[in-house]
């Protein structure tokens, strides 16, 4: 049998048990001690992230983080990825990734209400393989999410050749519940029945957790480690589980994800300080000839493990029968802290729970990479600014993603108020009259040059997105995706990333309530690791029962355009360097952590002021792209004087394309300009009026008395809107 355990780990198991270890026991430990399940390389560093906050009811280490949104309601949040399965089978891998994260949200007793999908692919302008991956990943997400009826309300996509064979497919889910009816896993008691509910157990996805914990081989046999999606069964599980929960019949529950039963059974009972006794011959299976190791390790989808009060099993069975869901009672909770696995009468495994769930942590070495050769002559400033802006608008990372979110049902649930594409963050209404804003971000280009600054910056951008819809950030989950942690330089970038995220969280008092780590992401041919890709998902709350909510499209001719924040010569990792000059290097934008909290809070406050018509943050592509997006979305023109931009540079390409953090463009009613500017100046924030909204349907930018940019809005819109459909072959 192939085991991914190291020699030391095997010796430790043998020493602790003091007897011969059975094959089934090996496979249980192998699954639970995999990187995917045990976080053995990352756990000690992740402790640096702040996890406490006034709204945090449950932090990292559980199926989902729980945030209090008032009036007895909670929002739950979790993020997962399905990178390796999606690289092999993009449709099935992405779809089952959605299924998995939905069940995490369900496991805690909350109803999933929204999905977000941060995605990373290779260079789709050059690679047919990456286009194939992208097309099918998106179809997989869409068909699964649409069918279960959970709206996909947001996401983001980056393109970089480091993701050519190892695409990153992340999915975050947000749930809604009530604080007093959540289901916590420590509630199981001896005598409780263990019910396995949902899809039958088969050979699909055998050993998926260990598959995810090593490098991709490009081996066709890996395809068997990808599971088969069945969103219909998932939908039934969601409804039946919530009904059983409402009836108060579920003491605890656990979804079956990575590691299958081998992980779900110990995890369902360990936090309640109990054990379990299960009989594999009772499991409802798809194939009759499965051996015990296969039943335990199968990652067949759409399965839940219920811990049921023995007096209520009849009631739960009735609910499951009504939904036509298969189930089997496979054992019960025992007082002794051991996991006993039988097949009929034969005892095949008898392992202490603590041994199973407490994998020994690894101390990984980190090594700062030797400073990369920095190009001394950064690209010279070009003269054809207008053409460059058009090229940036048509570059896949910046171009309209409506081809993508148009395939996602983002309206089901009748909660989606600000929809994808209309604003920097999506906004959902909550039953208590408040509003929830959701966004996700990542920037692997910044992170590859400076993992620490890139991580801070990704969080900063997400928080700015929330501020742009008037929401204060209340909690985040992170997904940290790297190459092989045994590579000291890779591990160094991981360490820098965690520290960067921690610094930002502390600066604005933002708790991390959960997350996920995915290592071993590297190109199967070149063996080069992906660019460091921390992705953050941040939720914000609009604590105001009747807010005006608006997107970033320009609204009215004659309004003033105000910029908040200062522009610095920070073109490192910018779309301008990467897309236009093919240059990777330079100085990465740095967040002004000292003033960040004040900045976010002030934008949230300003958003509510009368006279504010739109707010948009500056990010990928820089200030000029921000302005172009506002023009395109609003169908209006603008004229801007670049001299007015508060900046630490006077070089035009740095002014226009630098991706400096902490900047926002506001559209403000003329009459309110003075008041708004004064209130921001009083806070010590750099602010300037840089232009106005025009009816000429042109975006014009002047610098030094010359018009450097003069682009028609319809032309910009066409280039921006058609880029992705053209790449995907829908426009020829």
């Amino acid at each position, binding site marked *: 049998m192939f085991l991914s355990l190291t020699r030391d780990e095997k010796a430790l198991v043998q020493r602790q048990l003091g007897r011969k270890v059975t094959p089934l026991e090996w496979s249980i430990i192998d699954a639970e001690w995999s990187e995917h399940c045990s976080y053995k390389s990352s756990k000690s560093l992740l402790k640096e992230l702040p996890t406490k906050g006034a709204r945090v009811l449950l932090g990292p280490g559980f199926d989902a983080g729980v945030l209090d949104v008032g009036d007895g309601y909670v929002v739950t949040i979790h993020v997962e990825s399905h990178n390796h399965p999606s690289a092999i089978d993009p449709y099935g891998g992405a779809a089952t990734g959605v299924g998995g994260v939905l069940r995490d949200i369900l496991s805690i007793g909350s109803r999933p209400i929204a999905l977000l999908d941060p995605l990373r692919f290779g260079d789709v302008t050059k690679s047919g393989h990456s286009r194939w991956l992208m097309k099918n990943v998106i179809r997989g997400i*869409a068909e699964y999410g649409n*069918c279960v009826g959970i709206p996909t309300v947001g996401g983001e996509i980056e393109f970089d050749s480091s993701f050519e064979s190892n695409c990153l497919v992340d999915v975050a889910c947000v749930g809604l519940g009530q604080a007093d009816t959540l289901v916590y896993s420590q509630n199981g008691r001896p005598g409780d029945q263990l019910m396995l509910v949902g899809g039958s157990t088969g050979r699909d996805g055998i050993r998926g957790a260990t598959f995810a914990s090593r490098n991709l081989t490009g081996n066709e046999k890996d395809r068997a480690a990808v599971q088969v999606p069945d969103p*219909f069964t998932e939908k039934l599980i969601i409804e039946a589980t919530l009904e059983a929960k409402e009836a108060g019949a579920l003491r605890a529950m656990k979804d079956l994800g990575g590691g299958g039963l081998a992980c779900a059974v110990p995890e369902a009972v360990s936090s309640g300080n109990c054990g379990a006794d299960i009989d594999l011959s009772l499991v409802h299976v798809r194939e009759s000839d499965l051996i015990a190791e296969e039943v335990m390790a199968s990652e067949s989808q759409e399965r839940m493990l219920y811990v049921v009060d023995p007096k209520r099993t009849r009631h739960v069975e009735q609910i499951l029968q009504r939904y036509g869901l298969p189930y089997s009672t496979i054992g019960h909770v025992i007082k002794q802290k051991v996991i006993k696995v039988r097949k009929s009468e034969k005892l095949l495994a008898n392992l202490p729970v603590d041994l199973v769930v407490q994998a020994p942590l690894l101390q990984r070495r980190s090594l700062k990479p030797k400073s990369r050769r920095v190009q001394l002559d950064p690209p010279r400033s070009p003269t054809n600014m207008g053409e460059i802006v058009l090229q940036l608008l048509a570059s896949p990372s910046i171009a309209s993603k409506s081809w993508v979110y*148009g395939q*996602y*049902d983002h*309206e*089901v649930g*009748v909660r989606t*108020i600000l929809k994808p594409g209309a604003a920097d963050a999506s906004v959902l209404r909550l039953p208590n009259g408040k509003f929830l804003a959701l966004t996700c971000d990542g920037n692997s280009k910044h992170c590859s040059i400076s993992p620490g600054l890139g991580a801070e910056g990704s969080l900063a951008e997400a928080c700015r997105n929330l501020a742009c819809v008037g929401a204060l950030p209340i909690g985040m989950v992170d997904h940290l995706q790297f190459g092989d942690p045994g590579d000291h330089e890779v591990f160094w970038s991981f360490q820098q990333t965690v520290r960067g995220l921690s610094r930002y969280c502390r600066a604005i008092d933002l708790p991390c309530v959960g997350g996920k780590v995915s290592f071993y992401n590297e190109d199967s041919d070149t063996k080069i690791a992906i660019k460091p890709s921390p992705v953050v998902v941040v939720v914000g709350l609009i604590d105001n029962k009747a807010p005006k909510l608006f997107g970033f499209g320009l609204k009215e001719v004659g309004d003033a355009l105000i910029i908040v924040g200062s522009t610095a010569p920070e073109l490192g990792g910018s779309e301008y360097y990467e897309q236009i000059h093919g240059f990777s290097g330079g100085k990465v934008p740095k967040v002004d952590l000292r003033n960040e909290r004040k900045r976010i809070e002030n934008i949230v406050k300003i958003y509510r002021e009368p006279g504010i018509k739109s707010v948009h943050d500056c990010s990928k592509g820089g200030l000029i792209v921000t302005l172009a997006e506002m023009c395109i979305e609003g169908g209006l023109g603008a004229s801007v004087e670049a001299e007015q931009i508060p900046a630490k540079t006077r070089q035009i390409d740095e002014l226009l394309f630098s991706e400096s953090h902490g900047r926002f463009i506001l559209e403000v009613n003329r009459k309110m300009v003075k008041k708004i500017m004064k209130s921001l100046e009083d806070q010590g924030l750099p602010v300037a009026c840089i232009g106005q909204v025009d009816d000429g349907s042109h975006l014009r930018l002047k610098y030094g008395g010359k018009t450097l940019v003069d682009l028609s809005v319809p032309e910009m819109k066409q280039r921006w809107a058609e880029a992705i459909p053209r790449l995907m072959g829908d426009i020829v």
Partner: protein
Amino acid sequence: MTVAVVRFPGSNCDLDTLYVLKRVLNTDVQLVWHQERSLESYEAAILPGGFSYGDYLRAGAIATQSPIMKGIRDMARKGKPVLGICNGFQILVEAGLLPGALLRNSSLRFMCQWTMLRVESTASVITRRLEVGRVLRMPIAHNEGRYFLPENQIEELDRRGQILLRYVNNQGLCNDESNPNGSCSSIAAICDRTGNIIGMMPHPERASEKILSPFHSDDGLLIFRSLLSQIQGGMTL
């Protein structure tokens, strides 16, 4: 005067429809599980959107075998309104209660977007309170929404006033660009010969509150109000 919202396994707009009827329109409404056989105590039935039976086999096909379809057919026979929205429309077509077929969108992709719809006929319980030519805004969200019927039958459908809504552009005109899914004759909603059985692809329940609409419209309410006024008035067309 109770409206039934029928819940098939895999329905996912059931709660949204229930919410709008109950909370926005203050109507007496109930979810009815598909294993019921009778809808006798209800005055109207709505088959909501979603993916009944996961759309396995063909969208709407397996749901036609559910026990509740007997109740639906009884209702239809008695002239009580039956409204199928999205997947509900697909089920009514599969059940033979409405003519035609709903094929895969011409884009071969799921489409979720807001559309403009022109009222073509008032000969149905959902349009009887509207005027012909009025343009409504409602979103669509479907993979199989391309309405198909042989051309000669389309003409007949049109002549009988059974074409209720067509997709149009900003100017209220039909053309290829305004037709999101490639439907024959830009059809978005139809009814049977009595005007009591209606199928529509757009989602009125997603367009019944101004806050949900990018255009601050609530045109979906016009559809529901028209239906409710019918059963409140106790009239049949």
